[in-house]
């Protein structure tokens, strides 16, 4: 899990062009949107592309999207759960 979180942080920085960010600056439990990293609606869409492209996972509803994309940790948990099944 910790390895996956580290990897996700790096991928998020690249995918969202957060050039002034380093993985250690991202708190994996903090909300990604509004507070925390302050991401916006385009970033949310870009993160769903990332999950599909790198992990072959689709988010099916807006509700699910909100839960999965809450934080780096929730994204990692979503990947872990779905890759097992």
């Amino acid at each position, binding site marked *: 899990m910790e390895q996956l979180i580290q990897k996700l942080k790096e991928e998020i920085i690249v995918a969202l062009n957060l050039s002034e960010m380093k993985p250690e600056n991202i708190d994996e439990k903090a909300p990604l949107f509004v507070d925390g990293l302050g991401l916006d609606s385009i*970033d949310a869409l870009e993160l769903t*592309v990332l999950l*599909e492209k790198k992990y072959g996972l689709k988010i099916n509803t807006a509700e699910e999207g909100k839960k999965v994309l809450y934080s780096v940790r929730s994204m990692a948990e979503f990947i872990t759960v779905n890759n097992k099944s």
Partner: protein
Amino acid sequence: MVIVDNKSVYSGTSADFGEFSASIYKHFTISYPKFHKMDNLSKLAFLSVELLSGSKKSDHKYKGDEIGIILMNSSSSLDTDRHHQDTIIDRSNYFPSPSVFVYTLPNVAIGEISIRHKIFGEGNFFVMEKFNPQFIVSYIQQLFYNEIIKCCIAGWVEIDGNDYESVVFLIEKTDRTDKGIANFEPGTIQKIYNKMK
């Protein structure tokens, strides 16, 4: 090379736009993380206006809806269009990116400048073969004449791969006797444009 008010203020070393724009951002200690998310056309427009408003400080003189942004170029957003096309060229690796696609419209550069400087006024993006001072001057003059705007950011912001050039002006109604201020006339702005060549 960056020229502000007829003075050369920075010369980059890289011909690559990505490196050059990043070096300008760093050199002038600009702090605006959203910059890194922009496409090249928006970066070019953003940096041009950033250095312009830094030297003129007109942000507080006018209300947001009194300022207009009129830009022009010849390649529209083709530079980013090619980038988006690359993401859909292979059906087995088909991942169109929303953060690329949104920039496949040239006027998004106007949106980025508007967000940065809280500008709500007239915006228009024109595409013509070459920088056309006659057209841009007469269009902006009627905006002033009809009191649609009191201040205007206008210019030519062109990028097509590593061919790029940008000339941006800040236009205000002012006392004709003000020294050192150029008149907004086709001949004058053509001369300023030619200096870059």
